[in-house]
């Protein structure tokens, strides 16, 4: 059991909650749409439902791979920007990242995962990626 934070219900027109409105810009449609995007991508926790354990484990493993991929890419970018890597190495690294990208795309499709599913919520620590 866990006691956790929740998002205030912003998208209601109920009288009680309307009184909570401090200010809203006239052009609020785009912002509320964006907030719904945030809300939709929030419940990213590893799924450990007994009936979906395979997907849950795949999500966990792919999340770790995605984290490592991003770390490696950042390190590679840093080296490219600093000019400490030659053309042949750039080509090799690029090919490796391309193949990893292709394989990750296939695996996500196989397990029915979206990009945002790999950015799991670590509670008080925030999002993983």
């Amino acid at each position: 059991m866990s006691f956790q934070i929740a998002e205030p219900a912003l998208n209601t027109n109920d009288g009680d909650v309307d009184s909570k409105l401090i200010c809203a810009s006239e052009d609020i449609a785009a912002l509320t749409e964006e907030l719904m995007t945030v809300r939709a991508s929030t419940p990213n926790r590893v799924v450990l439902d007994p009936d979906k354990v395979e997907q849950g484990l795949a999500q966990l493993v792919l999340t770790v791979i995605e984290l490592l991929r991003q770390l490696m890419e950042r390190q590679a970018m840093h080296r490219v920007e600093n000019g400490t890597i030659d053309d042949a190495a750039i080509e090799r690294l690029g090919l490796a990242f391309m193949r990893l990208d292709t394989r990750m795309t296939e695996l996500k499709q196989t397990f029915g995962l979206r990009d945002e599913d790999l950015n799991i919520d670590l509670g008080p620590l925030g999002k993983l990626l």
Partner: protein
Amino acid sequence: MGVLYIYAIVDQPDGDLPDIRGIGDAAISGLHVGDLLAIVSTVEGDSVPFSRTNLLCHERVIEALMRGRAVLPTRFGTTTEHAERIAKALETNGAGFRANLDRVRGRVEIALRVGWKPEADEPITRPRAADVADGRSYMQALLAQTQRSRQRRDTAEALAAKLTPGLAELADAVVEKILPTPQLLLKAAYLVRHAHVAEIRRRITALRTEYPDLAFLATGPWPAYSFVAEGNVA
């Protein structure tokens, strides 16, 4: 079969509970452990559907509790089959709950969301392997993406730094996230004393006037939803 729905953890266990019904029109009651009280009601089934009615009911119960007590609101949908588990959580984590109750006592949360339209308004997306011919092109695309992302974040941080200090100085605690999505410049929550609510409202309204190109949505006062995370019980 029913389960216990948990609304909040509160102090003052001997005080009267507010005269308000819970989800499904069920009576609310308190599970008392030491100087802490978990506010619960019984609901049918093993979970509570995510509906407007249920969300508002959850909120109303918590706000009614706030009229006389310090309140740690729980996330909507928190349930358990066993009252003993709640009691154990209160017992095991009592110190954390008490510290959090002290932190939110006499305070409320003000939520602020600020939307923006970044320059060129063009989404920054990862290059896909299928879109490039060779490793070098892929690296060049990655580098371009990295640089654009960095530039956009720098711009966002500079803009947010102009908006938030006047609000943060009124708050006892702040949760701010810059660029949680590309179109959302800032998602913030401010824990403020009741006495500061009017002033923070005034300052937010002034910001809206000062920055007409940004889209502001500010709401509150709310229970301190964003400031109870450290009291989580796993």
